[in-house]
């Protein structure tokens, strides 16, 4: 039995960090990623395609998305497609899942109880879905399969690790413990919710197949599971993302003018494609007018977008020397450096702003 599993695509999600055009492109890329997944399913001649929830976002999906999903999955017919609604695409009265007239090969698990679908003689897929955006109990609580054969579960839930580690920023939904999978009589669980990929002995998190933000680690995408007659699984990961997202740090230490900043950034990203977020770090000369918009405009043709941001950037003022100056400048630096009411970020900005004002750099007073 071959199953292609994915989850957490988050169609129609917003990209707050992106420009309007880029955000639209990113959402378009999510759709293209789903098409890639479907193409992969056909190519691998799998027995079923499974989605572990958060296929789309209920509060944001567009009518066009509904049509897109219906058409895309109908294109796989007769390959079965099993969809287990998650907390973002919960199966409610106004759910997209309800309004789409799915083709006959699509099955949506709209019940909070795991319900069986025999795929072959002796192989049963058990699926369940969220019916609310929160407070969904664990699907494996008080559950046990009621028949023989090989059993695989499909749902959107939070695996509760024994050590209490949890993916940062994720609220636990439909929690379960790894040992509950076997206790329920399931040989494996195909799950979604955590965006970080995980291949545990009892379950598989494929991770979000297309990048949703920066800094995502691990090979995320679709997982091809080959389930043996004894319930054992062999997993193979496929990169299906349409988008490329890179996080790059650029050290500006020693640069003396803005042109040099651009050169360093370009040299750091010239081999990359997709969307690159550049984090600027290091100590720059006080004369350097560092403007993120100027850096963003340097985006080469090989990139979809260049998103610069300031990291640990400092200005090479000799504050320790300046503060001893018996001048207004010295007094200013000394007072600002000694001010407890300021955060380090505020202190940096106030110092640079003041010194630039004293330098007469009247157009460079906005410090980033």
């Amino acid at each position: 039995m071959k199953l292609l599993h994915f989850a957490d695509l988050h169609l129609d999600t917003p990209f707050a960090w992106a420009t309007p055009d880029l955000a639209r492109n990113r959402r378009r890329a999510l759709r293209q990623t789903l098409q890639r997944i479907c193409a992969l399913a056909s190519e691998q001649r799998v027995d079923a395609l499974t989605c572990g929830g958060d296929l789309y976002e209920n509060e944001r999906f567009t009518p066009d998305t509904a049509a897109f999903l219906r058409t895309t999955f109908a294109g796989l017919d007769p390959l079965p497609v099993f969809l287990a609604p998650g907390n973002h695409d919960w199966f409610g009265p106004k759910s997209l899942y309800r309004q789409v007239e799915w083709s006959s090969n699509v099955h949506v698990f709209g019940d909070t109880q795991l319900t069986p679908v025999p795929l072959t003689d002796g192989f049963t897929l058990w699926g369940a879905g969220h019916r609310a955006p929160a407070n969904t109990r664990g699907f494996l609580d008080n559950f046990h399969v009621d028949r023989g054969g090989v059993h695989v579960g499909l749902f959107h839930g939070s695996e509760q690790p024994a050590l209490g580690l949890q993916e940062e920023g994720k609220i636990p939904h439909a929690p379960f413990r790894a040992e509950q999978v076997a206790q329920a009589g399931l040989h494996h669980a195909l799950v979604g919710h955590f965006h970080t990929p995980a291949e545990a002995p009892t379950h598989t998190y494929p991770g979000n197949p297309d990048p949703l933000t920066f800094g995502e680690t691990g090979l995320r995408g679709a997982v091809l599971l080959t389930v043996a007659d004894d319930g054992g699984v062999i997993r193979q990961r496929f990169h299906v993302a349409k988008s490329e997202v890179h996080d790059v740090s650029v050290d500006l230490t020693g640069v003396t003018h803005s042109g040099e900043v651009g050169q360093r950034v370009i040299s750091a990203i010239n081999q990359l494609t997709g969307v690159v977020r550049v984090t600027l770090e290091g100590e720059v000369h006080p004369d350097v007018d560092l403007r993120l918009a100027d850096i963003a405009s340097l985006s080469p043709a090989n990139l979809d977008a260049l998103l610069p941001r300031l990291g640990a950037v400092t200005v090479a003022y000799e504050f320790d020397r300046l503060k001893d100056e018996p001048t207004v400048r010295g007094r200013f630096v000394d007072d600002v450096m000694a001010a407890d009411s300021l955060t380090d970020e505020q202190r940096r900005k106030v110092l640079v702003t003041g010194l630039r004002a004293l330098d007469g750099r009247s157009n460079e007073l906005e410090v980033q």
Partner: protein
Amino acid sequence: MQIRSVTAHAFGPLRGETLELAEGLTVVVGENESAKSSWHAAIYAAVCGRRRGKGRSRLDEQRFADLHRPWEGSDWLVSAVLELDDGRRVEMRHDLAGKVDCHAKDLDLGRDISSEVMHDGTPDGARWLGLDRDSFVASACVVQTQLLQVLDEADGLQEHLQRAAATAGTDATAATALDCIDEFARERIGLERANSTRPLQRAIVGRQRADEELSRCRRAHEEYLTRVETVDELHELGTAKVATVRAHEASAAAAVAEQLSTGARRATELHGMYGDMPPASVADDDALARQVAAALDGWFSRPEQTTTTQRSSSQLQEELAALPQVPDGDTEPHASVQKGVNEVTRVNTQLEQHSRSRPSAEIEVPQVAAGDDELLDLARALDVPSPDRGSVTPLQGMPGRHTARHATTRSNAVIIAAGAALAALGGALVAVTSPVVSVVVLVAGLAVVVTGVIRRRAVRGQSVARDNAVGQAHAQAAWRRDQAVARCAHLGIAADPTTLRAIPVARAHAVGLASHVAQWTQQDGELRARMVAACGELAGTLAARGYTPTGADRDALLAAADWYQQECRHRAEQASAAARRGDLEARLSVTRAAEQRAEQDEQERLRVAAAVRAAVGACSLDAATDDQAAAVLQEWVSERETQLEEVSQVEREWAELRALLAGRSLRNLQQEASSARDKASQLAAAVDQTTLASVDPSSAVDLLPVLRQEASLAETQAAAARGELKLFAGSIGSVAEAEEAVERAAAELARVRELANTLTLTRSFLSEAQTRVHRSIAPILAATVKRNLPILTGDRYTDAIVDPTTLEVQVCGSSRSWRNASRLSYGTAEQVYLLLRVALADHLTHGYDTCPLLLDDVTVHADATRTRKILDLLLEVAASRQVVLFTQEEQVATWARETLHSPRHAIRELEALPNA
């Protein structure tokens, strides 16, 4: 710090030349083109070097390079020997071109001490002064142009002081920086005001609009979802309606199929019985049947035989003939007669009663010459007993009192006896109970005995007093009795109280009897008059009724009245009998009609019986009586109806067969039924069985039109809603994009607010720093000026103040009239400026080495007097610090030659450079 020598290895036009400088004032004299400015710059470069930062040079650096880079060769090298205040001799060497061969070396120890003063990549000797190469220029180097600026601009001095106070003169003043911040805030932030077009207001409006757009998108999305739900509901409703129609159609088809199948089965059955030929008709004996039916109808509807128990018409006629005629006269006594009889009878009764109340005989009254009152007084006096019977004691005369006294005496005796018994009981109790109780009882008994004795004595005293008073009253009564006896005797009547009292009574009775007799007599007369009147009235009344009495007395009248009343009763009975005539005549009419109908009925009965007999004969039947004939005919009719029913059944079934086939052949009918069953099965298979089961087959066909209309309407509504949804879907916008727009707007607003906050904080710190620095510098500047001002101005100005807010310098003389230093004469202003420069240099290098002064042609525009004063001031300054003055003026050179004899000072004369 002192600059002992400077060597221009390669600097501008200079190559391999050294300039030695004195520790006090060194006047470097040279004509134009003698490289004075180059030496001035070389000294600065040898002490401070050049920045070795990456990137392009600043404008001032580039200008410096353009002016002083050697005209030939690539080397650009200077060095200097410095002597620091701590005694160290240091060599400063600067490769100004490559900036590599740069160092600060301790000449005594031979160590590189560049790190002590490293600044921007190269050693900077100004750091020993607490300055850097930029602020050294501003603080220690004075050029002609600066002096001119101070002199030419009204607030030049003040502005210079502010610059020095702010940044050691390298950059803008603090006020300019604050203005710069304010201007930047105005342009890049602006006010949070509705009509503002600046970034802050734009960001606020942008955020509001983004929020509104997001709300709109979310509402539209929610509306979209709701509409989707509505469309789904309408679609489901339409589907359900269609399903209902399909179910009803299936049910109707099943009913039709069942009907056809039943018809086909029935037709098959009938066809098997009758085939294709119609059955024979049975109607040959219809005439006989009609005769029999008519005979039986007549028989059963014949009239009943009538039997009457009432009187016949002849009897009634006889009774009519015997009835009397209606009598004349009163059939009831007339009211007037009855009234007269009643009056006579009542008056007669009253007379009889009055006669019985006639008064009795007269009463005899004794004749006594005394009034009734006197007779009664005598009787009362005689009621007292005679004294000669006075052996009776007063008490005996008063038995009640005696009895009371006796009872009192007896009760007292009882009390005494009870007390004695109680005392005895007390004595007896000594033996059986406690002494206290017995003593108490004994004392109580004695107390009771004493009480009884006292009471008896009191009663005896009271009896004696009362007996005396009674004796006196009896003596007086006896005297009055004696007087009464004597009076009776005088009157001639018995001295008896009863007799005396009877005389007034008799007198009263006699008077009453006389009055009663008179009254009775009057009433008797009146009654007799009324009797006479009543009799007259009755006689008149009877006469009016035609009865004349035989006499006028009461009895005759009453007899006549009685006769009249009997006559009335007789006539009443006669009238009553005569009154029955009308009723009997009506009854006679009815009886005669009934007797006529009975006659007719009998004739009908005979006719019907004859018809029945005739029918029996026609049917060839026999019957002994008419009733039997009718019964025989009934049996005949019953048998015939049975035969007719059988024939009718056949005809009906034949007609049924014809109707079932309806022109078709049996085979066609069977095929049609089969087709209907197939269709019904197909329709039933296509619908939900539960829905189908809920349909009433009997009403399915009737309901179908309405259901089809409802289904069509529901589908139309669903289609319309779906169309509207499609249109609406195109206008809802993207929630994700709206959220992103909000994020961007929020980020922009946060950026502007953050910038505003940063500028506000910067301004606050900067303003505060300015205030504090000015307050610390002002007194230093004022003290310096005050110390030297009298010398410089020949006591014309003796005092100076510096405004700590603006660093404005004012001076005054003995008149205490304050003047702005910038508005003094050129010479005075120059000297004040130089003093302030020295003071500022001291202030800025406070805590570090003494800062030398490098002056370039600062007297070039001064007249001889002013030049002399400046030189004198510089000599004064040179007493405490190294001063290097470059000049081309002969006056200065002359002054130097004449004045600078001390080894602390020196004159260096430059020769003109050879032409290039």
